[in-house]
């Protein structure tokens, strides 16, 4: 299975046509896949809170958005998640690379990894953790759930899910 393609297919099948991204090495393949899809407008953002603002506007304009980012960005976006996405009750699927988990080569990444789930839990954000490739089968249902409940929803995807890192 090509998980990058499967994720992009599920986005399109759920009518998600506006995707913003800030790269992570783990996410390079899925970002490239999203960029190539005609059914998705891909707009890179410079910071993840900016990206969440773009998504809020796109949703109010009638498009279903998503953000693709690294888990370190939870540290960047807490205010936005609380005072924009949650306060105005907006849906936002967040596909998040979960750096600093098993098979991580960069020690600094562990420093935010240990806070990631605690911060998401503190924010009452529904959180899913993809560890095995087959976990991607839940992605479609998670997207449906997100637009059912109008909440930000986190999908943490660790190194094992992506099949390791190569050199980084």
């Amino acid at each position, binding site marked *: 299975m090509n998980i990058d393609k499967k994720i992009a297919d599920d986005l399109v099948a759920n009518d998600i046509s*506006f995707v913003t991204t800030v790269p992570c090495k783990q996410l390079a393949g899925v970002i490239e896949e999203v960029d190539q899809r005609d059914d998705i*407008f891909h*707009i*890179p*953002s*410079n*910071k993840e*809170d*900016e*990206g*969440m*603002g*773009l*998504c*809020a*506007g*796109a*949703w*109010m*304009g*009638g*498009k279903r*958005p998503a953000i693709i980012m690294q888990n370190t960005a939870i540290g960047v976006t807490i*205010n*936005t998640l*609380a*005072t*924009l996405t949650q*306060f*105005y*009750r*907006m849906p936002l699927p967040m596909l998040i690379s979960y750096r600093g988990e098993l098979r991580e080569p960069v020690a600094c990444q562990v420093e935010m990894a240990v806070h990631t789930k605690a911060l998401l839990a503190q924010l009452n954000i529904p959180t899913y953790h993809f560890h095995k490739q087959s976990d991607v089968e839940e992605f479609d249902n998670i997207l449906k759930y997100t637009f059912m409940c109008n909440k930000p929803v986190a999908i943490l995807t660790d190194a094992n899910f992506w099949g390791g890192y190569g050199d980084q």
Partner: protein
Amino acid sequence: MIRSEILREIAPILRDQLVVCNIGIPSQELHAIDDQPSNFYMLGTMGLASSIGLGLALAQPKTVIVIDGDGSVLTNLGTLPTIGNNAPNNYILMIIDNGSYGSTGDQPTYTGMKTDLAGMARAAGSDNVVEVQDVDTGKALQEAIDAGKPTVMVVKCDSGNAKMPVITMDPVIIRDRFMKAVAS
């Protein structure tokens, strides 16, 4: 002129447009002067008005006017390259540049010193950047709407706030009536 005097003057132009309004006193002033369902008031999240407006303009064809502030643009400077490279023809970013953080007591920002937001917007890729003096705002805004091109306006005005009540409307109501205005 101070921001509230500008808003009062351009209210008849804003009334028929989708407006995304900056956090704090700017939203309180617009709400008090001319509340409309087509106004999206930001109650928090300093800095993201320009981004919300950009997402909205990209998602649908109606003109979107963002009323932003110098302090808020400075805190989300990454927005300028995103606007410079992606803004569609229905996007107008109007930065009320009073050289201060008005809502929090008029503390000076760097735009009242050496920093030039219009120059930064141009350097970030925006082709239509207009610098406007407060008294000319209405004329310049109407021209930007009529031009149908992505525009960044930097409106130079005095620092100061009108005393207006806090917005107590529920955020979901603000958002819901705004979405209905967008879709209508």
